[in-house]
């Protein structure tokens, strides 16, 4: 469990957390990027860029 950087609500984290993945804050809906896993550190995720995709 850690805090949402935007609204301060608790964010539940799953066991296989990976740096670089995105999780949604269940309270405010902000997309949060996992920047570290031990201990977990979250930051607001970058906005969608035009060249993102597959």
């Amino acid at each position: 469990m850690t805090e949402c950087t935007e609204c301060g609500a608790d964010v539940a984290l799953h066991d296989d957390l990976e740096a670089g993945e995105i999780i949604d804050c269940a309270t405010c809906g902000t997309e949060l990027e996992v920047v570290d896993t031990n201990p977990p550190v979250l930051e607001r995720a970058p906005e969608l860029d035009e060249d993102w995709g597959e």
Partner: protein
Amino acid sequence: MKLGMLYSRIRKDEKLLLSELRERGHDVEKIDVRKHQFGLDDSTVDFEDLDLVLDRCLATSRSRYTTQFVDHYGTPVVNTPDTADVCADKVKTSLALERAGVPTPTTTVAYTVESAMDAIEDFGYPCVIKPVVGSWGRLMAKVESESAAEAILEHKATLGHYEHKVFYVQEFVDKPGRDLRVLAVDGDPIAGMVRSSDHWLTNAAKGAKTAELEITDEIESLVQQASDAVGGGLLGVDLMETKDGDYTIHEVNHTVEFKALNEAATSTDVPGTVVDWLEAKAEAANTDTDCDADTAEVST
């Protein structure tokens, strides 16, 4: 093997691969390209230490440049920068497919609003305008009237990045409410899915419903040809069915997402098959390196 994974975001697709790679005991180095620099001689990443690099960059620009650098440093990278360069650009993809004789929608490129309007009028309505770089069905326009065409072109010319002034106009393929996605490694299909939607866009990213696709000999052959045309690798080949009962290939994706396919194609271990291919690629690269070393030893 020691595998480097280029990324800037870990999607479910990357998590599936990481899980499979680690379960098999491979040493995986995650390389967040946002945190590194790439020089003409070396990089802040020790690429020499890696057997193989897998490009999973979310941003097309980062994918294209970073694979160029990794290749330049002499470390094997999949997909290759040449494949990335072709697949990342719809104009280059269309030309590569056409050159190889692979059926692909009729396409015209124009550089001014006036000449693009002429191209649209030649196609008739509806037709399609696509960005030359883009994914997930974003900024795609089905043009159904002259007034809509004028508005779209004006917006692209006024508001867009210079690439939006490369007007990529394509025939509208009246597909039967679905398109087909085949995941392939060097042209060998791993699995396929049907993507269905009431919307004219049938991307999984747009919420299309998915189901497993039975890959026929005809589809397999087309996928092989399309893969060869763009340089091979781990690819997502998109096909549409035409009114005549033929297929046309409209897109080949080089950093292909497969989470939806993995859920649709329940009879196939998609990440497992991709990792089988990565292992073979690393082994082949190591064999090549050993042969080069032996040759050098004999020469001296």
